[in-house]
């Protein structure tokens, strides 16, 4: 056992460093407008931000089995807090800053947004996580709306005009790093006995309590962790688009994140990643279909412009019919599971 852990401890530190190095190297290449189209870059960035959102929501909706409908609200808290922070405190323009200074500001904004959103998560979670099922959904839905309406009415952060002129601090590196952090946290959580306790809360609260699991405590912890990560996604979002509006965090946005989690497979981290990428890509890919269908001049008694949104919804319905538990169906995609799949197939071929 000691030898085994020593070997794995070296790996444990190498992995994250390797990922960060890779992102660091890839960053200038991907951000170069001549080599990589800005349109593609935007899709990549939004996919990354959506990965953070869906993987973090999966911790609450998938692992802990609590139905939260307010993820966009926490994202808004993170976005506005960090944007207000960098706008009011950071006075040097970005182009006059060294890479190190920019990184320091970004880290500061990320931490602040995580803390603010995490605190809101605690505030909402403490009373409402004692409720079960639909009640929690309603409370979180209400919270999201309260946040949005509050923002609309605070003039200092733009109110209904939105907040513009945010520094474009977010780069591919930061989106990748936060996404990797979220995925790693989610995986580490599930691998630990604490994660097992969280799953136990989902499966049977009475039995979990009888085994010494503080069910309310675990639900609140998961909720706070999830909201803090959503806040960080909001920070990335604000400093990428450099303009945020209260309506970008409407409850439809929350539903969109839930769709990502469900399409990927509730309770699966890799599923949440997959779901986020698919839901971000799908409307873009379908633009081609839009062009094709518009050219075909299908005679309809009414005017239909955005065919792609019709196809998009049909595809979602189809997916839910074919795979009601989502693409991954609660399972994880890993080297181990792939190897097992191949072995089973080759065994099947032999038999």
């Amino acid at each position, binding site marked *: 056992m000691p030898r085994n852990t020593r070997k*794995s401890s070296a790996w444990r530190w190498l992995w994250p460093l390797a990922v960060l190095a890779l992102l660091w190297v890839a960053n200038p290449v991907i951000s170069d407008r001549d080599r990589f189209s800005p349109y593609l870059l935007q899709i990549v960035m939004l996919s990354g931000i959506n990965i953070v959102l869906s993987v973090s929501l999966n911790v609450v909706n998938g692992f802990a089995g609590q139905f939260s409908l307010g993820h966009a609200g926490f994202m808004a808290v993170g976005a506005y807090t960090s944007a207000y922070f960098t706008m009011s405190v950071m006075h040097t323009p970005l182009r006059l800053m060294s890479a190190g200074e920019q990184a320091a500001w970004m880290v500061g904004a990320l931490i602040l947004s995580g803390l603010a959103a995490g605190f809101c998560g605690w505030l909402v979670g403490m009373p409402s996580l004692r409720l079960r099922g639909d009640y929690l959904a309603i409370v979180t839905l209400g919270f999201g709306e309260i946040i949005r309406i509050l923002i609309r009415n605070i003039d200092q952060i733009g109110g209904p005009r939105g907040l513009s002129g945010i520094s474009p601090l977010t780069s591919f590196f930061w989106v990748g790093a936060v996404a990797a952090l979220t995925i790693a946290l989610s995986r*580490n*959580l599930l691998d*630990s006995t604490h994660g097992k306790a969280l799953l136990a809360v989902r499966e049977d609260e009475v039995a979990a309590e009888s*085994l*010494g*699991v*503080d069910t309310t405590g675990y639900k609140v912890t998961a909720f706070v962790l999830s909201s803090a990560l959503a806040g960080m996604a909001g920070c990335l979002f604000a400093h990428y688009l450099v303009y945020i509006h209260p309506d970008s965090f409407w409850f439809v946005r929350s539903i969109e994140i839930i769709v990502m989690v469900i399409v990927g497979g509730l309770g699966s981290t890799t599923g949440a990643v997959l779901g986020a990428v698919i839901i971000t890509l799908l409307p873009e890919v379908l633009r081609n279909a839009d062009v094709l269908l518009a050219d075909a001049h299908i005679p309809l008694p009414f005017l239909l412009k955005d065919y792609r949104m019709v196809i998009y919804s049909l595809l979602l319905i189809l997916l839910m019919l074919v795979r009601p538990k989502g693409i991954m169906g609660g399972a994880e995609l890993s080297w181990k599971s792939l190897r097992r799949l191949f072995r089973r197939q080759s065994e099947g071929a032999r038999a």
Partner: protein
Amino acid sequence: MSATLSLRECTKRFGGVVAAKNASLRVGAGELVGLIGPNGAGKTTIFNLITGVYQPDEGQILLDEQSLLGLKPHEIAGAGVGRTFQNIRLFKDLSALDNVLVACHLHSETGLPSSLLRTSRSLNDEHKLKMKAVHLLHLLGLGKFERETASSLPYGEQRRLEIARALATDPQVLLLDEPAAGMNPHETGQLMDLIRQVRRDFQLSILLIEHDMKVVMGICERIYVLDYGEVISQGTPEVVRNDPKVIEAYLGEPLTQAGEGA
């Protein structure tokens, strides 16, 4: 490590129904005590009072000297009371090993932050807990089911897994709610051996609810009989078996008396 569990004159009312009425019972350190009674006598209510699912309206519940009143169910589990359920409540979608690991989490020495960061301390701790869980599974003859999901286990094994899971919390007192329900005579025999073995190996006090008289009379040292929430009889299996009050509770009043009364 066994402890004394005592209920002192506990009463629990649900509206007009008195589910437990001045119920007093005591499980001595290392004792194996049975709790029987007709359907609806309040046996499971007593379990729920002990484990904090319900709070008694009156009375006191003590584990050694510590009062369990007002504690939440998970705190009572932490204090050293483990239980199983009448209708099996395993975590169906989790593997047998994970079911036991959930219960091990109570003894996890590392907090959530270090688990999230996967520090070597947390990994060592996880490894220790996993070894403990595997050991428990083997001890209860469930070693080969380690990776199976709980719901795919045969019925008798699901009951065993529930006991393994309760044992993983390192209880001082174990409450078993009808462990032999739905078992055939062969499985019941195995279960009796298991309960004796568990008590010996883990040095536990055990309180057992059971309808199968062969089990209760066979392994319990003392028995409490409950009817309409009241303890109507107690003593060794011999005493209880021959107590007219017990026979009346189970079979109704003798015919002659009923005739006279009318």
